[in-house]
């Protein structure tokens, strides 16, 4: 993995610590592992942490079945704390290493007309390895649709 692709682009990233993975399961050590990977993928200087973070992070509002429970307004109200955290970082992308987080953070961005993009970690790892193809870029914004294209 190399963050070279982002040396000149300087696209900024933040990361969502999934409650299930971090606070509820493996704690701060896994949050450190996550940052180690993310920084090696996007470049240390292009990573901006949200606050609070790690075990102290706010839930995005996608957990506990909220996405399926038929309370979209309440779910988005819950998500305001998360949206404000992400906006405060000024990052172009929020990396979400959890399914529920991805769906919720993506929705929170969509209802604000996409001030940030919401992307899976696996997408960025493959991008930094130079093996991400054209059809695997659903969640990348226009800025990265053609960057480090596999086979190009």
């Amino acid at each position, binding site marked *: 993995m190399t963050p070279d692709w982002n040396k000149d682009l300087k696209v900024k990233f933040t990361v969502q610590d999934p409650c299930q993975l971090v*606070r509820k399961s493996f704690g701060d050590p896994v949050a450190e592992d996550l940052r180690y990977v993310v920084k090696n993928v996007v470049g240390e200087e292009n990573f901006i942490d949200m606050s609070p973070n790690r075990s102290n992070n706010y839930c995005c509002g996608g*957990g506990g079945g909220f996405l399926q*429970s038929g309370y979209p307004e309440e779910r988005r109200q*819950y998500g305001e704390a998360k949206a404000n955290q992400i906006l405060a970082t000024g990052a172009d992308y929020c990396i979400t290493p*959890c399914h529920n987080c991805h769906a919720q953070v993506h929705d929170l961005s969509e209802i604000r007309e996409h001030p940030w993009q919401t992307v899976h970690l696996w997408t960025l790892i493959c991008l930094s390895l130079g*093996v991400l*193809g054209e059809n*695997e870029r*659903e969640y990348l914004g226009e800025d990265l649709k053609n960057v480090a294209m*596999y086979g190009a």
Partner: protein
Amino acid sequence: MGEPAIKLGTKRSSTFIDKVKDLLPEGGNLDLCLTCGACSSGCPATGIGGMDARKFLRMAALGMDEEIQQSPWVWHCTMCQRCIYVCPMQINIPQLVFYARQSWPRDQRPKGILGSCDMALRNDTCSAMGATEEDFEFVVEDVLEEYREAQPEFKDMEAPVNKQGAYYFLNQNSREPVTEPDEMVPLWKILHLVGADWTYGTKGWAAENYCMFMADDEAWKHIVEVKAKAVEDLGCKVWLNTE
């Protein structure tokens, strides 16, 4: 002006909170609240429908069972456990919420969660979207074939299904095979490049478990057992669930 004061009755002898205390180790510390408000001040669900974590706990402690058991707020708390993490007394509010969810008649719990749970109970894939064993195997093989042909570096890539004795048993959220199969590929590529010995299973492959959010103990236990059996039957050492 503030909210109207809550009228207190005499506390009944056996209340909802007492039942929950009996179920939790150390009674979930539910009696130890200092009313400091650390829980609700750092909870994104605070104020939704006029409820918050501390208020919910106080109402339970006061025996206001009907009010809290009927409050839709139990579906707005995500049971994320941040409140326990910051609480000086480690009070288990999310478990209180879990049992309040459980006190709802099953057919009155949120339809979306109920439907997803019931769907997952229908077959051994545990897919909340109802994808069958055949569906899953077909999609995985189809997508793999396509990528092997189109991307030469990955012509030997594998996405094994039911590979006996593989080290890792990997779960997959239903959303990918059902609605965006290309999204499975980056993960396969990473596993291929690091040389991981892994497999999916036709049984128990779906990562989600809505029965847990439904607070349906029988059902979520069943789902976990089906998945655990699938892992054991294939003799896998590590069960990876990316949810």
